[in-house]
């Protein structure tokens, strides 16, 4: 599929990287020659240097054959305009990044309609949403929910003294008699889709799929349960902080934001009347303690600097704040931070690229059983996908134990008319079902890809 990406900044490059890995034909547009140079050196893409408002530039990039045009350049307005131009020049679908909070839902829907945008994405809002989900269920480091919230997929790390340490999966099933399925285990950067005699070890990152109530029940039994956070401290008054505070405030959670920019603080206090805004340097430990860091249920570090986020998060963790979340954009730093003991790390650009990949895959296979939801889980080592099943004789009405699945594929859940099925060997897949598939180290385009060829 031919995709054009306009703007190769942080987010643009991340999207580009994941779309290249999906095997698409990518053309990158940027008006900075050296950026284009670097991108074409590193990735197998075509680069066009020029302004995305220039029709000649768009035509050189082959806009008329483009299936998808993604505008992630500097400003929201230029993204919308270039999407509009691209649409008029023949691009079939367009996605624009629109991140300014002033574009509220109503104006967005008008703009989307008028500029014929297929989708608008707001990385900050998506990131805020992900953090919000985690704060509601702080035992997890990552929560992904599938359509209609029927199933949730939860990642968490086994602590050193975990009761699960040394337990085999079949032992786990016998002991807890739950409907929770352990989908994959990440151990020393290696991903496993575990079988019945797989032994869990402390330090593993494991991912579970089940309904929300089952997971809560299990966590209670395991003694891992943490109450929903009530008091949250946010460091840095960025856009994400704004969106997050808004979500938290409307859920009745009290929020304290610390930012060193006075103007920014005033602006935030206008927008967020319920939040407590502190104008101070958040890197001062005394100040954090004075503002009651130790009494907080959660600490979220959202400054513009990855390094600052990591260091202050480590400090917060040493002060026994139950849940510490840090925003880290650079991949290398994120893996380092994880080694330093910060387990909950949020990367806005990764969230965006997940959304775009999902969209691109859905476009590509509009014929077969299409991808409804897609999450990269376990630091990108595995994918969790939700398909809506079409009538496919190779899959439908065959007991699961008789399906010849590829290696590293797991059927994690089936939803049928609001009924949730944690699949066993005798269950079957029927047309119209929503099926959740976990796939490690491979990319599924459609549901039939789970079968051995």
């Amino acid at each position: 599929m031919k995709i054009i990406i306009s703007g190769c900044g942080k987010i643009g490059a991340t999207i580009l990287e994941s779309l290249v890995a999906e095997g698409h034909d990518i053309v990158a547009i940027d008006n900075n020659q050296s950026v284009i140079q670097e991108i074409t050196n590193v990735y197998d893409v075509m680069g066009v240097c020029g302004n995305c408002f220039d029709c000649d530039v768009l035509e050189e990039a082959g806009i008329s054959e483009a299936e998808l045009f993604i505008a992630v350049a500097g400003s929201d307005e230029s993204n919308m305009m270039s999407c509009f131009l691209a649409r008029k020049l023949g691009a079939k679908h367009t996605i624009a990044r629109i991140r300014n909070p002033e574009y509220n839902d109503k104006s967005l829907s008008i703009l989307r309609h008028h500029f014929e945008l297929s989708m608008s994405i707001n990385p900050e809002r998506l990131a805020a949403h992900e953090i919000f989900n985690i704060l509601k269920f702080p035992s997890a480091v990552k929560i992904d929910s599938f359509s209609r919230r029927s199933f949730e997929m939860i990642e968490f790390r086994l602590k050193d003294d975990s009761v699960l340490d040394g337990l085999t999966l079949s032992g786990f099933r016998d002991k807890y008699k739950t409907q929770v399925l352990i989908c994959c285990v990440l151990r020393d950067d290696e991903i496993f889709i575990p079988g019945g005699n797989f032994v869990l070890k402390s330090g593993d990152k494991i991912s579970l799929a089940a309904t929300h109530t089952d997971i809560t029940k299990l966590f209670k039994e395991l003694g891992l349960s943490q109450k929903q956070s009530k008091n949250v401290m946010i460091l840095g008054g960025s856009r994400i902080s704004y969106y997050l505070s808004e979500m938290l405030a409307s859920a009745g959670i009290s929020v304290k934001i610390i930012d060193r920019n006075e103007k920014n603080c005033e602006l935030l206090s206008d927008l967020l009347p319920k939040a407590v805004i502190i104008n101070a340097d958040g890197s001062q430990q005394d100040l954090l303690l004075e503002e009651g860091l130790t009494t907080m249920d959660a600490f979220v570090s959202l400054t513009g600097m990855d390094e600052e986020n990591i260091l202050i998060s480590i400090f917060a963790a040493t002060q026994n704040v139950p849940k510490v979340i840090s925003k880290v954009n650079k991949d290398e730093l994120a893996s380092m931070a994880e080694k330093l003991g910060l387990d909950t790390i949020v990367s806005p650009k990764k969230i965006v690229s997940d959304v775009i990949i999902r969209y691109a895959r859905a476009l590509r296979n509009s014929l077969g059983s299409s991808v409804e939801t897609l999450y990269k889980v376990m630091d990108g080592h595995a994918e969790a996908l939700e398909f809506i099943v079409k009538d496919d004789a190779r899959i439908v009405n065959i007991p699961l134990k008789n399906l010849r699945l590829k290696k590293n594929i797991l059927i994690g859940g089936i939803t049928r008319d609001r009924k949730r099925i944690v699949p066993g060997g005798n269950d079957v897949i029927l047309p119209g079902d929503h099926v959740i598939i976990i796939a490690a180290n491979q990319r599924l385009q459609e549901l039939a890809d789970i079968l051995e060829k």
Partner: protein
Amino acid sequence: MNYSIVFYMTGRILQIEALLFTLPMVTAVFYRENCFFALLISALIAGAVGFFLTTVFKKKDSMIYVKEGMTIVALAWILMSVIGALPFVISGEIPSFFDAFFETVSGFTTTGASILTDIEAMSKGLLFWRSFTHWIGGMGVLVFIMAIFPQESGRSIHIMRAEMPGPIIGKLVPKIRETAKILYLIYIVMTVIEIILLCVGGMSIFESIVHTFGTAGTGGFGVKADSIGGYSPYLQWVITIFMLLFGINFNLYYLILAKKIKTALKSSEMWCYFAIVAISITAICINLHSVYGSFSETFRHSSFQVASIITTTGYATTDFNTWPEFSKMLLVALMFIGGCAGSTAGGLKVSRIILLVKAVFRDLKHTLHPRSVASVKFEGKKIERDTINGVTTYFALYFILFFLMLVLISLDSFDFETTFTATAACFNNVGPGLSAVGPASNYAAFSNLSKMILSFAMLLGRLEIYPMLLAFAPALWRNKNH
């Protein structure tokens, strides 16, 4: 430096070469010639060495950065030539290894300079191999590998850059593999058309194929002592036109295929190239007015020679060594200009000349108006200062190396004209020069040292200097971490 990927890729290339030997083998079987065994042994050696390299250097890390790209290309071309020379030595048709190596390098680099004194005595199988090397070398082996194998490693664009001629290498389509496929497809289609047109004109199939290989790669190996001189005017015109066509940037053919003829016609490099050709033909026609009997003959000979030299092919329909001085010097100038970037031709490339001239004018203007700000534009686009710098550095390096080699070649104490044009003809991948290396004679008289230097010159010219120079830079090999 990532040694494993360098040797792994080199091994891959030798495996491909082993496969390529099958075509001349078929020819040898067809004509029932003994050179079949020489070719078979060479193919087995290539295959064995290739197999050895690919298994020993099983790639651990497949990252290719600029230096790996350049080293792979340089190493591959040298090894390919060494092995490509084996059939000549084994069959005994060119007993000296130095001669055989010179002949093979001349083939792969599409130079067409020969040390053979009696071409017509060679076996058909080896003649076929000799010309086939032109065809392979014209578009490049590594580009071929990229076209047929799925992406072997990240960043293979660096290999393509190192092997494709021209100052700016762009892709036709987003994926490098598709780009390589399209390039080879265009190349193959044009080759087939020329073979058909030559056959129609009464040339035997074998000779049509051989001459087409020579034209397509802009090489210049033939099968006759008098090159193309003995063929009918029709055949000479077909070859003239195809030489010119193979000297055009292949991207333009893709644009035409993609129905973007307007964009293709806007190419200033192409127009400049045609202008140089037209002016040169006119000038030589006027200069030659009394040499040949009729105007049509004069026109044909001058067109053929101009096309042959500017595209650095090196075929000849007449001994231009006997032409008046002005015409000869004009041809020498054309040797240095060469064809368009992204074609199979050698030389400095028309686009580099255009950029140089534009940069010179900009600097002159800057001297007059020291505060003026002017950007250099080419093909409707602003050219970055780095690119211009790259072109001027290339130009300087080109002439430094040229004169260095000129001095070394002069050790053989030929006259100035011979020494100068021999170096120029090899460095620019043309083939024949003037005087003692004119179209009617050959390079056999040079010493082995000179033959090695000239072989090196041909490789430098074909790969556009940097890969060859860098591959021999100690700094590249000394430090394992870089």
